């Protein structure tokens, strides 16, 4: 039954591609959203069957993909607690986003193309999380990357969209290549790319902290930071907002960008064998979450704020992975999928209602005109800021507590995470106050454009964002087989800090942007503050850095050697031959005495040589 899940959306993709836009929009919507909806039903049934069976994993082999010597990866699907959580998020949240898109994209002439890419994406993402071997996982991995490229550049007539799409594909491909090399190394050393087999083999053959696990973990981490937009490969995600907003919700918030988190969680045994790399994961997460949090504070574009916020939240997941809180990270992955999809879809409603306005400072006072979007943003932002008893509160709490319990740098990681939470409170509510409160700034009369297909998913996601924290995810058998679930014992003070800090952030945000008691202008008056603002606004200058270090030299090399200097060498030989030919032609003067002279000279030369040698 597992095979049906990716097959249904894949079929949807095929139908939409082969009909090439000739179907009426209603039919496209039914196929596009319906295939994912059915896939969700299958996933739900599979979940019920799996949880009742008591098995640790269900394996379904479809066919042997290729068999060369002892390299025999199959089209084999593997369902355990971890992939179960993932497929439910992908098909569930994915279906809601598809449903929303049937309304959101209704006026787009390329309606069918949009849903064909979306369906292909869901199919690839499901293969990614259901793969039982790393080659099949890589298929899904590249497949989602392709769809991401296609959908970021969906409105292809604008060159900047194409640029953003290419940037996303190429930057993530840097990570993918690192991961591919990791696969080569794993196979060369362990003789298999079946995930479960190689984890067992690695545990048996490799000592903790030895070179091989460290190198492989680093290479896989390269793939993960590319896909999940973490340092140093995070630069593509903010630009990826060029795509239609539902894409940002589905691919660049809820599912694909968390694939890196999934990969590390899936191969967590390798990372446990390489403690130094695991610690690196934590630090990458921490630094990314802080950097992205600061940058989110400075952005004007509603989608870019959310994009940086996504980078920041994935930073929390990496932090969790780094401190070994595997299930907490996956938990946060899930709650984040709920509230970030909610925020993006709500942002889509705002943007659509305001005739594609993205700048939050050109909005204002929209809470009456856009009540559903307002409610969505309120609930989504509360969850994002980890307001007590919302879904984000529980998941972030678990990650930070796990960091605190870690020996050594744990306290610093915790502290950094708490500071990050403070800024999350500020930037998320800055958005809410600026867009929905204050005086209305837009000139046109705006009405909320949200039929039930768009409002329905929003209400459901609001519910999930509020209550998602009470869902328990069945991943214990994956991460800690046979162990009792751990209890955190921390003092009331720590708890108090962790509850209070985001609230202080929200409060501060109110003082600056709600009541205007405090003035941003005054804060920004100094030249240092302005410089810092510019620096943060640019995403810490990473784009400029890469431009100088990689892009410019490459373009320069390409430009100076457009005509291929190897070819020029051959052209040189041709020139030389021609010149030699011309020289010899000239010697044919037709004068007898010249010939006689050269004959004599040659003779003398030969005789001399003969005597000398």
């Amino acid at each position: 039954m597992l095979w049906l899940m990716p097959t249904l959306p894949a079929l949807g993709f095929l139908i939409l591609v082969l009909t090439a836009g000739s179907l009426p929009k209603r039919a496209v919507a039914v196929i596009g959203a319906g295939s994912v909806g059915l896939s969700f039903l299958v996933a739900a049934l599979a979940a019920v069957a799996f949880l009742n069976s008591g098995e640790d994993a269900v394996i379904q082999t479809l066919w042997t993909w290729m068999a060369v010597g002892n390299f025999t990866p199959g089209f084999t699907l593997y369902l355990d607690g971890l992939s179960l959580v993932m497929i439910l998020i992908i098909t569930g949240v994915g279906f809601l986003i598809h449903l929303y898109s049937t309304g959101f994209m209704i006026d787009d002439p390329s309606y069918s193309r949009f849903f064909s890419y979306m369906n292909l994406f869901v199919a690839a993402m499901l293969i990614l999380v259901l793969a039982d071997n790393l080659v099949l996982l890589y298929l899904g991995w590249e497949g989602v990357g392709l769809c991401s490229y296609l959908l970021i550049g969906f409105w292809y007539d604008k060159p900047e969209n194409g640029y953003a799409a290419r940037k996303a594909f190429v930057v993530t491909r840097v990570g993918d290549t690192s991961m591919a090399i990791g696969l080569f190394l794993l196979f060369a050393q362990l003789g298999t790319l079946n995930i479960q087999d190689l984890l067992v083999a690695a545990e048996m053959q490799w000592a903790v902290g030895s070179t091989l696990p460290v190198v492989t973990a680093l290479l896989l981490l390269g793939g993960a930071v590319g896909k999940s937009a973490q340092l140093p490969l995070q630069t593509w995600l903010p630009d990826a907002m060029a795509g239609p907003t539902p894409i940002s919700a589905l691919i660049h918030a809820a599912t694909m960008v968390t694939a890196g988190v999934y990969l590390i969680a899936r191969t967590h045994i390798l990372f446990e064998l390489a403690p130094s790399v695991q610690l690196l994961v934590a630090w990458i997460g921490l630094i990314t979450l802080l950097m992205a949090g600061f940058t989110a504070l400075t952005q004007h574009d509603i989608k870019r704020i959310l994009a940086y916020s996504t980078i920041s939240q994935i930073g929390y997941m990496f932090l969790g992975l780094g401190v070994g809180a595997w299930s907490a990270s996956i938990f946060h992955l899930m709650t984040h999928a709920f509230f970030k999809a909610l925020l993006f879809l709500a942002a889509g409603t705002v943007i659509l209602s305001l005739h594609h306005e993205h700048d939050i400072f050109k909005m204002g006072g929209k809470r009456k005109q856009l009540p559903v979007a307002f409610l969505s943003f309120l609930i989504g932002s509360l969850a994002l800021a980890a307001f007590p008893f919302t879904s984000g509160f529980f998941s972030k709490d678990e990650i930070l507590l796990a960091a605190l319990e870690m020996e050594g740098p744990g306290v610093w990681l915790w502290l950094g995470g708490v500071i990050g939470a403070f800024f999350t409170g500020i930037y998320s509510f800055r958005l809410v106050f600026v867009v929905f409160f204050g005086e209305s700034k837009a000139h046109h009369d705006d009405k909320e454009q949200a039929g039930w297909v768009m409002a329905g998913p929003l209400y459901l996601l609001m519910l999930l964002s509020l209550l998602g924290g009470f869902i328990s995810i069945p991943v214990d058998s994956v991460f800690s087989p046979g162990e009792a679930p751990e209890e955190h014992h921390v003092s009331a003070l720590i708890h108090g800090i962790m509850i209070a800090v985001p609230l202080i952030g929200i409060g501060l945000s109110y003082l600056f942007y709600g009541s205007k008691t405090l003035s941003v202008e005054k804060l920004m008056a100094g030249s240092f503050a302005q410089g810092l603002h510019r620096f943060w606004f640019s995403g810490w200058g990473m784009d400029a850095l890469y431009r100088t270090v990689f892009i410019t030299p490459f373009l320069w090399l390409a430009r100076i050697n457009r005509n291929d200097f190897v070819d020029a060498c051959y052209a040189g030989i041709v020139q030389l031959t021609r010149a030699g030919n011309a020289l010899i032609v000239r010697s044919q003067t037709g004068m007898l005495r010249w010939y006689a002279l050269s004959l004599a000279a040659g003779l003398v030369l030969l005789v001399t040589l003969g005597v000398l040698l």
Partner: protein
Amino acid sequence: MILVLLIAVMFLGGLLAWLSEFLDPRLPRVVALITVVVDMLLMLTLLGADGGASPWVASVQGDWIPRFGISFFLAADGLSVLLLLLTAFLGIIAVGSAWGEITERSGFFYFNLLWTLAGVLGVFTALDLFLFFFFWEVMLIPMYLIIAIWGHENKNYAAMKFFIFTQVSGLIMLVAIVALAYFHYLQFGAISFNYEDLLGVELDAGIAFWLMLGFFIGFATKLPSVPLHSWLPDAHSQAPTAGSVILAGVLLKTGAYGLIRFAVPLFPDASAAFAPVAMTLAAISILYCAKVAFAQDDLKRLIAYTSISHMGFVTLGIYAWNELALQGAVMTMLAHGLSAAALFMLAGGLQHRIHTRKMSEMGGFWGQVPRMSAVALFFTIAAVGMPGLGNFIGEFLALLGAFQANVTLTVVSALGLIFAAVYSLWVIQRVFHGEFRGAGEHAAGLTDLSRREMLYFAAMMLGLLWMGMYPQSFLALSAPALQNMLAGSGDFLAATVAGLR
């Protein structure tokens, strides 16, 4: 006998096509199509064939010039069969792509096309090295004529360059062949050009190295590999589309086939010692040509450079000389045969429509020609190495196998995956995405793919999907042949390592 028949059909079909022009100028293309289809059907009988104890599924042997030990020895194993099928398949595609494009002297054109294919079939089956060289020449001269007569604005230059590069390198190889036959004489008292005899010749390391180098130069020029590649961009940009299809799809593969069949098995130790050099050239080909490709404005030149880059993975796989890497090389040959041919057909189709190959005069074509754009996107992402399509299987296996032979060069080559994404997406952007650019005075000619064209592209897409989703059909066919050659060449990796010291 079937092998003789395969080649004879091509030769005869070529003659018939030429003659039929005198009846009706539209007849040659029909004759040519029937010829290649018949040939392909004949080949299908080889799939069920079983050679029993012999490594060949089909073979035929007779005397030719017994005095010099030259025999008429044709044989095919799974590797040959795969390449024969590729040749016939692309032969059909090539005839199709010439269908509306070639109007002048069509009889002579199809004569040349079919004789080139006949030469290729001979190269893939000849196991007498003299006969092999004969076919090697047979495929060269008609191809030269195709470029020189039906080519574009700079055709004479390109054709001459193609001819000189292939001819000079071919002669170097001929010297090596004759020398090898002579050493057989010294050792066994009789001259022989028979492949199976020559496998048994034992050579001094020094001599073996020079002979191996002769073969390598011959084949690496055809492949082509840096630094012997510079004929290819000119040949491709000037050749008519059908010429490009055969050139990129099939002729390049004869070079790779020669390395697998002759260069390494005949000189296993010398090749092992040479492997680091060959793999370095492969890595340079991959990266360097990817970079040069990126800078091109001429669409066909760009695709030509990407071809060289992709063939680098083939060289890399061959000189890693283990089963994974060899299977990767073979899969890359097959998949690249389809994807490169398709890309050249698309570029040719564009040139036919808007009379330019310059990408600076294109842009935003998606809105005008959505079908063509989608097809182009498909083959581009195939070339990028998207899993699920054939090229991925080839490059992944080649790298996976090469990693076990040489970590550094494999890692360097793998960077080519990034560059492939850079130039490929840049092409999509410049031609199909962005704002529509008028394409000059010929904009009206920009029409979407016709039904006939869609048929060819659909066939190639299905082929790539098959290779990508169920490569086992192909791997199983070539596996016995490759294992056979691996077994015959001793411990290659150990010899490579020894050579490094």
